[in-house]
Each structure stands twice: as structure tokens, then as C-alpha cells.
């Protein structure tokens, strides 16, 4: 039975991945195919000039609404915002805590 949670986690991670990429596409005005090319090291805040603090704040608020999580101020770090991988790891951990 140990494999089932793993499969569920992988399935869950895939869903989260597409949710997050969809959200970034919505914020940046990309088509989904472009957002799908994001990898763990793809740069976000500080790398994309159009992604300013206001846009990031909007992105976090939308993450809360779409994923059903609450993001505290203390959660927000440069590390989690800098790359797609950082944001993904953060969202995954938040969902696991829920």
C-alpha cells in the first residue's frame, strides 16, 4: 500500500505544476505552451522586469484563492519568489501542511 500515496503525490504534484504554470501565464499574459516550458531554475521575481512587487502580491493572493492556502508574511522570502522551482516547493509544502 505504500506505493499508492506516492502515486497520489506525483499526481498531485502534476496538478499543482499545471495550476501554478497556468497562474503565472495569467499574470504574465503568456500562452499556456510558453508557461509549460518553465523549469525549476526559470527566474521569476528579480528576473522578469514586468513582474514587480505589485504583480507578485497579486500572484500570491491568487495562489491563496486557487489553491486554498493562506500565505503569511513570514512565509514570503526572496528564495521562494526567485525561481519557479522555489515557488513550486513552497506551494507544495503549504498544501502538505493544510
Amino acid at each position, binding site marked *: 500500500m505504500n506505493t499508492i500515496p506516492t502515486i497520489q503525490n506525483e499526481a498531485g504534484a502534476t496538478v499543482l505544476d499545471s495550476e501554478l504554470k497556468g497562474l503565472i501565464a495569467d*499574470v504574465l499574459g503568456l500562452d499556456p505552451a510558453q508557461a509549460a516550458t518553465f523549469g525549476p531554475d526559470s527566474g521569476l521575481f528579480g528576473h522578469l522586469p*514586468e513582474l514587480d512587487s505589485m*504583480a507578485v502580491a497579486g500572484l500570491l493572493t491568487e495562489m491563496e484563492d486557487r489553491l486554498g492556502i493562506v500565505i503569511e508574511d513570514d512565509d514570503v522570502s526572496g528564495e521562494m519568489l526567485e525561481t519557479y522551482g522555489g515557488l513550486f516547493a513552497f506551494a507544495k509544502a503549504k498544501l502538505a501542511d493544510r
Partner: protein
Amino acid sequence: MGPEGTTTEELLVAFDRGRTRRLLVCPAWFDEANKLRRFTVEVMRRLDNAGIDSFLPDLPGCNDSLAPAALQTLPGWRAGMEAAAHKFGATNVLAIRAGALLVPAHLPGWHYAAQSGPKLLRGMIRARTIAAREAGLEEQADTLMALGRSEGLVLGGWQLGAAMIRDLETAEPVRAQGHSDIAQSQVGGPGMWLRAEPDEDAKQVDALTAIISDDLSGTSA
């Protein structure tokens, strides 16, 4: 209306051909106002083609307003929208995002993706703490809010006075009989206020216009 009940003059975008249906638009606020400006005016253009007049006043203290931003209050803005509704002979109201906080309750109309005061404030405070952290400063939301309540704050470049911040902490959309909600899912695609840079989407404009004009043609006498 100014903070002491004095009327201020603000710029207005209007499609006024003296028609029966006259829609007052309560716009989105601050950063969202910029991102939704083109969307909002495009909806007004389509409504004009559909035979509906519409009026979009600037909020005092915003855009080209001569009124001092830091002195604006929620009751002042509400009174201003009320005065605008009477002046233009509005028959209906369309509120966009935080515009829902300003709706004259006597007019029937629509709340498009209504946003509450606390959510608006939270997003703006968050943007400020993120920008501060990027600049190597540490600002806490709680400390900022305490300062905001007593002295006011600059958030995202907008000066919010202490009264406005205290008002927003509890402000909810004005809901009255004859008001209906339009969710983003009815308009389709992601909300334009989410975009990092202003953009437009003709399909969303058409969808919102259709909801309003269909509702109005269904209720017209």
C-alpha cells in the same frame, strides 16, 4: 465630494446620447484601475453601440484629480458616486472590483469580480513588504498597519490617509436589492487585473457587455 463634504470636480469619460439606459461605472481602484482602464472603456464603447449611455468619473485624488490623495475617505468617495449618479441621471450601476465598495445602493446593477476592502489592503501591504525586502529592508505588515491607522501609508505609490486605511479594514461591497454578481468565470479567462502589465482581451469585453445589455433588454419597460 471632498473630505469635508465639499464637491470636487473630476474628469469624466462619458458616452452620453440622452438614452433611457444610463450606466454609472464605479471603477477599480489604484493599481487595478490602471490595469483595467482600457478594459473598462472598451466595455463602455460596446455598450454605446448597444444603445446604452455610460459614465466613468475619476475618483477624487486619483488620475488627474486636483484633490489631495491623502485626504480621501471611503464615505467621501461614496458621497461622490452618489452625487455623480444624481448628476448624470444614472439608471444602473456597474461596479468593477473595489468599485463595489462605492455603489449607490438605490441603483440596480452589477458587481463585476467584487473585491473587499481588507483584500485590497492586504494585497497592497504585501506588495510593499515584498518591495522592502527586495531593497534589503525588513517591514512587517502588522507594524505597517499600525502606522497606517495613525498616520496613513504610501502603498504602491498611492497615498492612503489614516481614515481611508481604517475605513478599508472593514469595508465590504455595498449589496442591495437589484444588485447581481458577475464572477470572472462568467466573463472567461483570467481577470485583467492579474496581469503584470495592462493588457486587453476583446472576448472578455464582449462577454461582460453581453451580460449587461442582455439583462437590461430583459428588464426594459
